């Protein structure tokens, strides 16, 4: 036996045993997984880069395309919903209004949408290499944040030009919204990615639900329209549900930051409190989601 071999054996004899592929039970398992994910932290950056590079591969304009899409959407919605359908009459600065909502909604839909199919898309790796599989749904956050970054540049420039941007603590709402959506969509992406392996219909269902959610939050219309319609009726409780939908809260947060500070006070007296609560709940959901994911991932390799 060579010296190097002897050293290795001695070192191994002192190392603790780890359960192959199993992270433990309950909260302790969650902590183990987080620690393991931390070890792989560089991989998040690499996977994000891979995704972005592959997205506009071989196209001449490259990243310009990631600007074209949101600008087109902005233009269409502003024209059709704002002018033709008349939503712009009750909402000043309508362009900024919808773009703020769309930007944060896109972060959510991109993460959840790509996250849901992430395990299936990366099946080649999952079947052949061991690594914490949570990486794949979570790594979809990176490219989505990149898209958001580009949209934020447009949004900030546009709101500065139209004069709706003002400096102040209300800008923190943007940050709060991003944190809320990242945490929430991480939880959803984990659960949906795992279930999609067993039932491929999940990814189609998610597409549909994402459309519903877009219209279920005040992105293209004002929240006042919903409240006025529901007020006094038997469905008044729905207003509360609608407002405390985390996506609505995040959209309101973005509108606070970039469109009109203090606009949400009518509907949610202390928006930041609701947002913090939603973020807290989402954080708990992440733990639950990870446990569900850990439970389901045992059979990934043969189901894919």
């Amino acid at each position, binding site marked *: 036996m060579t010296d190097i*071999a002897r050293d*290795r*054996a*001695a070192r*191994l004899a002192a190392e603790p045993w780890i359960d*192959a592929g199993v992270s433990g039970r309950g909260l302790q398992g969650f902590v183990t997984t987080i620690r393991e994910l931390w070890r792989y932290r560089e991989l998040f950056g690499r996977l994000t880069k891979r995704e972005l590079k592959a997205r506009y591969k071989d196209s001449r304009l490259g990243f310009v395309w990631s600007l074209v899409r949101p600008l087109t959407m902005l233009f269409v919605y502003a024209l059709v919903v704002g002018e033709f359908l008349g939503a712009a009459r009750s909402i000043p600065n309508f362009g900024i209004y919808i773009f703020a909502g769309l930007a944060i909604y896109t972060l959510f839909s991109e993460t959840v949408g790509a996250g849901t199919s992430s395990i299936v898309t990366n099946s080649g790796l999952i079947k052949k290499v061991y690594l914490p599989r949570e990486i794949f749904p979570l790594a979809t956050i990176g490219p989505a944040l990149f898209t958001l970054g580009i949209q934020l540049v447009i949004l900030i420039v546009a709101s500065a030009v139209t004069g709706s941007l003002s400096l102040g603590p209300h800008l923190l709402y943007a940050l709060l919204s991003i944190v809320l959506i990242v945490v929430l969509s991480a939880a959803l992406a984990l659960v949906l990615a795992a279930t999609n392996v067993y039932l491929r219909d999940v990814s189609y269902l998610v597409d549909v639900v994402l459309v519903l959610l877009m219209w279920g939050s005040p992105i293209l219309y004002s929240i006042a329209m919903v409240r006025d319609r529901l007020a006094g009726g038997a469905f008044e409780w729905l207003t509360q549900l609608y407002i405390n939908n985390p996506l609505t809260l995040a959209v309101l947060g973005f509108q606070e930051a970039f469109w009109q500070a203090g606009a949400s006070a009518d509907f949610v007296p202390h928006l930041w409190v609701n947002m913090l609560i939603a973020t807290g709940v989402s954080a708990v959901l992440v733990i639950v989601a990870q446990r569900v994911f850990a439970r389901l991932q045992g059979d990934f390799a*043969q189901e894919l």
Partner: protein
Amino acid sequence: MEAVPIVQVENVSKHFTVRKDKSLKERVVNAALGRRHAETFEALHDISLDIHSGNTVGLIGPNGSGKSTLLKTIGGIIHPSSGRVVRRGRMAALLELGAGFHPDLSGRENVYLNASILGLTERQIDRYFDAIVDFSGIEDFIDTQVKFYSSGMYVRLAFAVAVHVDPDLLLVDEVLAVGDEAFQQKCLDKIRSFQLEGRTIVLVTHTLSQITDLCTRGIVLSHGNVVFDGAPIDAVGMLRGGFQSQRDADAAQRLERENALSAPARARVAIPSVRLVDAQGAPTTGVEIGQDVQLEVEVDAIDSVRDWRLGIAIANTFGQVALYSSTERLGLDPMTELSGRSTLRFSMPSLSIGPGAYTVSAALEHRDGTELARAQEATAFRVADNGISTGLASTPLSVALQPAR
């Protein structure tokens, strides 16, 4: 220094549920019908074993015996249905070369991506990068997108990354059979240097010579059970024996089928049995070099046959023919009428073929070449190792040292 266990497999079983329905509709319908579409299949059955640091363990067995499943269980890619696997140290799994390579990224980017998938940090990759590129031998193309690589280049790069991960435990599944001969040699050399460095290797392979060349321990799996665990040479012998009996069964079935099909068209002749018997006339399956043996081929001619010949072939497990002969070559009159049951006896005084396992096939044909009956691999026997020589041939041997005059 006592052996340090690096992997412990404790009572591991793995069931697969084989489902044929994937969509919601199918599931709902089938749930109503009582899950008729789910079948369970036991890939591993209550397996326990320890693997010690510094060993090279070969997992072998026929297809579907569970060896890859066991390897994946050790790697944490598949979770056991019951029991558990614990391990320690850094592990790298080479289950497929280049899993995780992205075709649109350059070789350089893929090295970084793949290495971080295998658990290296940026700094470590920076340190190994030149060694990786050097090992792969594709310096000139490192900044080309890998989709333009030839499959050989692709595999070289992937292997280069994998062996530079610095694992304590390396799991290898059938990936050593890729690349040209020079590169394969490079891979094997790398594995040997891994062994010197005390790394543990668990290897799944169908190339049995790799087991005897590389491994320090061989484990034979069959239908999810460990049927042998010990010296690699014995494991390989055991496995060949197993293949034999499987082959016997297949051959018998095929023969039956062929006879049934071909009987009406040609003369009805069959070779019901082929036997190896010793000097006393007792059937045997294990012989020694130099022993007197006879090969008895029973022929059952329902229609009488003239102008025929019968050939016998003794082949080793790789299908290499060690010996072929026929009644014609041996001077038996072809015009002798063959009818009813009769036995052809080939005498082999002082058998001289090398140690190993062999199969015997016999075929009866018209001298114009029309085959009448065939008994493919109809019997098997083993020639015991006399400790003097290996290989297909065997001859009396001695050696002497001659002092220079």
